[in-house]
């Protein structure tokens, strides 16, 4: 049997690996699959109708994504800068976020001048477009005045650098992918957390105005887990060749500065903790390659906190994952990461879509893998603590994508992106020549192949088709979190470095006070529609534990319904009773009888009992009393006890109605019927 270390890339590629480990099982989140099986799904895909941007990317924008007149990709007065808000975002919320971001927006306005644009309100992005579906770039462009033409960017209409502000449910990942083909796009998604927006804005301005000038240190953190081919591939064919490439001179894309580029001491979590502990320990550029943590959609809280967290060295294939094995947002502590730009090669490293783009080939529909699309907690927290941008993968990341079918390392996109970053280019520009171009190339070729396969089933082999499809999708799904116009703030000259302080710089009290008032006004989080995840199971292959869980939850669903229904009826009944009592409360009747046959008394029949005393107490307190008498006069004993009964009845009615009303109110509060 061939050991993993002895396998050739082509042998490894016979099965498709994705870099994700299920935190609840310790197994791959998606099992390796054969090319044949995978190809069967790809062949069923439709070809997008509008390929204008993609073809433009292959043509005039191939070598340089900006108009030829724009020589400096950092000169915002030439490239322009825009921010896009969701059209559906409430005015109050949007204005509060803009206030929190104001230092950044003001700085971009000053730099971009006439090429500064804000797309908001009617010109913002519509997640429910005219067709009822999320807008594509084409839909969005057509709606603008004047209409924005696809293809080579007309910067006066839509600047090159575009910051999207909102969650993937408000501005879809698909829109970000499409817009990114011809522009440099980034995203900020802090929900309603104004403090996070304000900190990010303050950090960007601080980094761009000399508060840090970081030493030129780039660190490559590579994990290789025991028995795991996925990290074997990423370590051997991504990280090491990438580092080696960057350390070598390249005439076509030379590094303009000497960088100290090193491999991290190990792939252990302690080493990653050190690298992200802030201050001098944190490099200017951090590249990681590892599995990303994956959690099931029925555990959304954990997904939001830990999906995409970086799985480190200690885990071995198929072993249970312990919390100590991976690095998540909460592990950052109070580290000051000011100026850092990081690149995570990991499944779900920066985000998770609602639906799985990589269904099992036998599945009829796309599986729902999260309650809704979201950005990962770790990069978001890093942006909050000073990092300027985090590049990474939405959805699953594929090992296939940096190795070509011919056993060659094909990491050009990574090389190009990192070389640009190390030369101080903005992060939105850095991803363009590599990933965006690759995406455009692959998509056009893939679509061409898919069209031809309809008439000639043997036009392309399964392996080739899979290679194209995965590489295409992989390139598409690399996105930037953060402002796309930021670049690494490194010291260009020896001896001029300005290191980070140990702790992040706090927001000025006056800003905190202002934001607190705005925060109180807009609430802690935006309301997000939550749909209970209907987890499709590939090929109907339901695991026993899943089936058990389904039954348990079904059982509970019934109980929930029973209790809620019963309480609702009960509460209605009490409300009705209280209403009736209120109507009937005008008179309280207290009757006292004497009878030899108490047992003969029935509900509506006093039998042969003699009415001996009757008191009618009116609502206004008037009392009419019929006094019991004997031949000797008033029956004092009976009269005495009757009077006591009257008093008891009066007290009881008040207390009972009061207790009933309170109970009804408490029940209604509890089951939220009000």
């Amino acid at each position, binding site marked *: 049997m061939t050991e993993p270390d002895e396998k050739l890339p082509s042998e490894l590629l016979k099965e498709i690996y994705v870099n994700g480990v299920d*935190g*609840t099982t310790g197994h791959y989140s998606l099992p390796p699959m054969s090319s044949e099986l995978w190809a069967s799904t790809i062949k069923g895909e439709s070809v997008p109708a509008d390929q204008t941007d993609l073809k433009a990317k292959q043509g005039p924008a191939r070598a340089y994504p900006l108009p030829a007149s724009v020589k400096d990709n950092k000169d915002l007065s030439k490239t322009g800068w825009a921010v896009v808000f969701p059209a559906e975002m409430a005015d109050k919320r949007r204005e509060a976020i803009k206030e929190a971001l104001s230092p950044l927006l003001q700085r971009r306005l000053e730099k971009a001048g006439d090429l500064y644009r804000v797309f908001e309100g009617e010109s913002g992005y519509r997640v429910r477009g005219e067709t009822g579906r999320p807008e594509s770039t084409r839909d969005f462009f057509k709606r603008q005045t004047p209409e924005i033409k696809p293809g080579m960017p007309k910067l006066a209409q839509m600047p090159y650098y575009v910051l999207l502000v909102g969650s993937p449910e408000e501005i879809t990942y698909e829109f970000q992918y499409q817009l990114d083909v011809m522009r440099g796009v980034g995203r900020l998604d802090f929900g*309603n957390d104004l403090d996070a927006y304000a900190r990010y804005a303050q950090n960007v301005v601080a980094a761009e105005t000399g508060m840090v000038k970081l030493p030129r240190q780039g660190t490559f953190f590579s994990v290789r887990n025991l028995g795991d081919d996925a990290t074997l591939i990423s370590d051997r064919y991504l990280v090491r060749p990438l580092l080696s490439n960057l350390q070598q001179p390249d005439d076509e894309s030379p590094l303009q500065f000497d960088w100290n580029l090193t491999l991290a001491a190990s792939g252990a979590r302690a080493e990653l903790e050190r690298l992200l502990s802030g201050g001098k320990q944190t490099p200017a550029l951090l590249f990681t390659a590892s599995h990303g943590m994956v959690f099931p959609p*029925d*555990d*959304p*809280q*954990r997904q*939001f906190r830990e999906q995409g967290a970086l799985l480190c060295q200690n885990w071995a294939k198929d072993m249970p*994952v*312990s*919390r100590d094995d991976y690095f998540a947002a909460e592990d950052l502590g109070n580290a000051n990461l000011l100026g850092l730009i990081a690149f995570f090669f990991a499944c779900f490293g920066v985000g998770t879509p609602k639906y799985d783009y990589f269904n099992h080939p036998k599945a009829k529909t796309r599986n729902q893998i999260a*309650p809704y699309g979201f950005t990962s907690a770790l990069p978001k927290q890093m942006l909050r603590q000073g990092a300027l941008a985090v590049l990474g993968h939405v959805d699953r990341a594929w090992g296939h994508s940096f190795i070509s079918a011919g056993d060659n390392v094909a990491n050009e996109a990574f090389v190009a992106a990192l070389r640009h970053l190390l030369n101080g280019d903005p992060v939105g520009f850095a991803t363009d020549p590599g990933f965006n171009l690759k995406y455009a190339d692959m998509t056009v070729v893939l679509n061409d192949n898919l069209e031809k396969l309809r008439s000639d089933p043997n036009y392309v082999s399964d392996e080739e088709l899979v290679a194209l499809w995965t590489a295409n999708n992989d390139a598409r799904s690399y996105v930037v979190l953060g402002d796309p116009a930021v670049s690494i703030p490194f010291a260009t000259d020896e001896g001029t470095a300005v290191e980070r302080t140990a702790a992040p710089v706090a927001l000025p009290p006056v800003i905190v006070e202002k934001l607190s008032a705005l925060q109180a006004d807009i609430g802690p*989080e*935006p*309301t997000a529609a939550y749909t209970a995840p209907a987890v499709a199971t590939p090929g109907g292959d339901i695991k026993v*534990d899943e089936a058990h*869980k389904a039954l*348990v939850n079904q059982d*509970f669903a019934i*109980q*929930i319904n*029973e*209790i809620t229904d*019963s309480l609702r009826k*009960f509460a209605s*009944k009490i409300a009705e*009773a209280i209403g*009736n*009592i209120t109507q*009937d409360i005008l008179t309280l009747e*207290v*009757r*006292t*009888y004497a009878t030899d046959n*108490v*047992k003969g*008394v*029935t*509900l509506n029949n*006093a039998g042969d*009992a003699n009415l*001996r005393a009757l008191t009618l107490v009116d609502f206004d307190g008037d009392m009419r009393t019929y006094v019991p008498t004997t031949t000797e006069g008033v029956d004092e*004993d009976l009269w005495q*006890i*009757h009077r006591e*009964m*009257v008093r*008891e*009845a009066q007290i*009881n009615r008040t*207390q*009972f*109605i009061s*207790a009933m009303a*309170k*109970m009804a109110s*408490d029940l209604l*509060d*509890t089951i939220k019927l009000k």
Partner: protein
Amino acid sequence: MADYRFTFSGFAAAEAPDPFGVWEAPAPDEKAVSAAGLTWRAALPDVDSGLDAILARTKSLERGEAYLLQADAELRATLETVMPAPVDRVAGTASYAFSVPAAENFHPQKQALRDTLSGFAALGAPPRQVAALEGAVAFGAPDAFAEEKERKGFQEAYRRWLAFVEQVKQLTSSSSNAETIIAGECIGLTRIAWDGDFETFWLPGLSALSREVHRQNVNLVLASRIALLRAASVIATGAGGLIFKAVVLPPGAQALLLPAAIRFIFDVMDALRDWEATQR
């Protein structure tokens, strides 16, 4: 030994005993004098000791009401300590649990509450709008009621809650009959209509003491009815407190916390009553 029986027909079909420990279910063959409505019956051997017995039950009810308030306070205090607590391991049953510190007096009750609440973890959550609330409990266990005893505990609390609701329903919609039986003979019957009207039927020629026995019995019945309503309020309020903590339950599932609250409240009351019994 003289036989004192305090029975309430509302407990007959229920699986729950009187949380105040005053009344019990009647024997299956025991028929109420007045078949319609709910019957609260005090069956006593004689007038003298009967009055003492009723007054003793009244005291017992008062103590029960004090226990109810104490249980309510315990639940509120416990809720103050309920916080999200990450569990060390990922591969297993629970990713997050309620962290309810052990208390000196009510550890079993708090443990039961924690176990029951933890069992709700698998029900999913509407996470986003509530995740930012401080002190909110993060549910996240992949398996519901991984421990069978937790599941049974919830089922028991669930049945108890349904029975209790049934009792309170009857209480608020039916008339109550307070019967006083001395040495096998019904000496007094008071029918309390749902709107508060009273009708009292006396056996002629009763002594003043006999009449006082019945009057005290009626008082006990009236106090018991109100106490049950107050218990329902406390449980609903307690469940509301749990809901505030467990904000990530799926829509509708808040009602599941009512059984958790009733279990805690009644168990603490039982514990207090047991403690009281040991002090005698």
